[in-house]
């Protein structure tokens, strides 16, 4: 599967895009592989201090929030895009 990193995430990964040889795993498993590769800093950006997902994760352009969240299955043909809160992470309420 192809993993793409955007905006400030690239400061940690130094990569824009990598290919992971993973088949039929859950998003959370793929994140563990990435944490192992990029270290603690990566985890600290992906999750907030309460352990909630802080970045937006798209699978083939669809936000996992509207799929099965971190339990969403990813196959080898999928593209996973990770965005820091380029426009998000707000505490405000309309």
């Amino acid at each position: 599967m192809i993993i793409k990193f955007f905006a400030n995430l690239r400061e940690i990964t130094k990569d824009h895009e990598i290919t992971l040889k993973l088949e039929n795993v859950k998003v959370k498993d793929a994140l563990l592989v990435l944490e192992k590769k990029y270290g603690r800093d990566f985890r600290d950006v992906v999750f907030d201090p309460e352990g909630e997902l802080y970045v937006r994760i798209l699978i083939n352009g669809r936000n996992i929030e509207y799929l099965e969240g971190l339990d969403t299955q990813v196959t080898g043909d999928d593209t996973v895009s990770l965005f820091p809160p380029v426009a998000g992470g707000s505490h405000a309420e309309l």
Partner: protein
Amino acid sequence: MGAKILYDELKSGTDPLSPENILVFAIGPLTGTRTPSSGRHVVVSKSPLTGGIAFTSSGGTWGAELKRAGYDAIVVKGKAKKPLYLWIEDDEVGFRDAKEHWGKMISQSDEGIKSETDDEAKVLQIGIAGERMSRIAAIINEKYRAAGRCGLGAVMGAKNLKAIAVKGSRNPEAADSIGLTRAASRAMKMISESGVTKEDGGLNSFGTAVLTNIINASGIYPTRNFQTGTFSGAEKISGEAMAKTILKEKTACYECPMECGRWVKVEKGKYAGTEGESLEYETSWAFGGECGVNNLEALARANFLCNEYGLDTISTGSSIGFTMELLERGILSKEKVGIDLRFGNDDAMIQMIEKIAKREGFGDVLADGTKAASKKIGKGSEYYAMQVKGLELPAYDPRGAVGLGLNFATANRGACHVSGYTIAAEILGAPLKADPFDSGESKVDLTILFQNFTAAVDSGVNCLFLTFAVGASEYAEMISSLVGWEGYDADEFLRTGERIFAIERLFNKREGFGRKDDTLPQRFLKEPMPEGAPKGRVHPLAEMLDIYYRKRGYTEEGHPGKEKLNELGVMD
């Protein structure tokens, strides 16, 4: 205030380019104060592009300067016999001859007017496009900032009003100074904590073009005149790419901690020498994905030229992309257009911008936007004019963000993203979260909420980017401490927005607008998106529109009902 003046005073059926049209330059209670991002101003008039109500706003410091000079609005009526400009220095107000500045590029006339008035004056003006009454002409302030949409530059041109230069020396007062300090500090804290607005956050690090990659990844980055929603060249023209190449420094409007502006400079190549504040997301898209161009330096040049000639970048890029598709489909010929304006040809795109501004050759056809151009061209070209009510669409394909699509259809000035920016919830997840494909009642509620909230923020007059971090209660607190209104809270703030939206609707109703105009280009209703996450989807407008009218308290024709008007305290 602007909408109310227009609604109360402008006779229906008035030609927008006649002396009878009214042009309002207004600021709000927040402008020029200690509240964050408070340098904006708004221009309101009857649009020569849409024939309906138009409001268009711009950042920088001009609005703050007008407040410091002691004014809340300038209302312009009639027409001067010869080109003039207005010079305001506190209580001294007068017209001056603009002969020397007419026909000049924006940067030249900005310097020229300052040399005749004051080096520290803030100059708002039209360029050659406005002078020639292009219906997609912008009103530029401080050389690089644009009240771009709806062609109000042409209204200034029609009035022979070249510019308004302002210098003020007063400090705005607040009804409750301590309360204002408290409210502004609270807002500032929220800005400093949001991943979007904080220092080194998304907007600060990459400018608004930080959106390019996420919108493209979501499959709604309009490509080659909205033929698809995925652009292979997006990365090359993204905010990330800009930060590594042509970005020289970040810039900010008055009292703004976000610094989302970009100062860019092209050092070499055919566009060398291009320098200035440049390339907001919408602009980089209008000449990028829309025209199939992936050369960042060409986009900077296109932006530079639009600023210098005083053109709206979105409508200009869209008019060029529209022509590119007509050429591709054989509806237009290269001979007719005069240059090889195919998708991806950045040289031809740059040439056409100059032709539009000067109304030369085929540029004269495009200078009034895609709706007017398609009427002249005929041959089914109307289908490819990506506009609503005459206003060209900005950088989001509504097939993959249906709440924004409903907003495009119903926004009073036409296809406007900033009338109800549901992308914040549908794609970015802030401050609310909403499935971009959901078209149910809750999505309609979301669009209405964003429209009301935005109308109030715009009337306040403040920067919408703040709304990623700051909500209605914070705005209500800042406004009530400035104005001295007791009990003005978040609900009242949203009600203010609902009232403004209804007054704009009443204005448009009087001009003949109704349900038939609350629509989208047929492409979005008939052609399924060919690829990406929204693959196979069209926009479900018909099913959403009835719900929208019902929830708004409007009639089936889309006009505010009597009961709703009574509730809002608005007289029809």
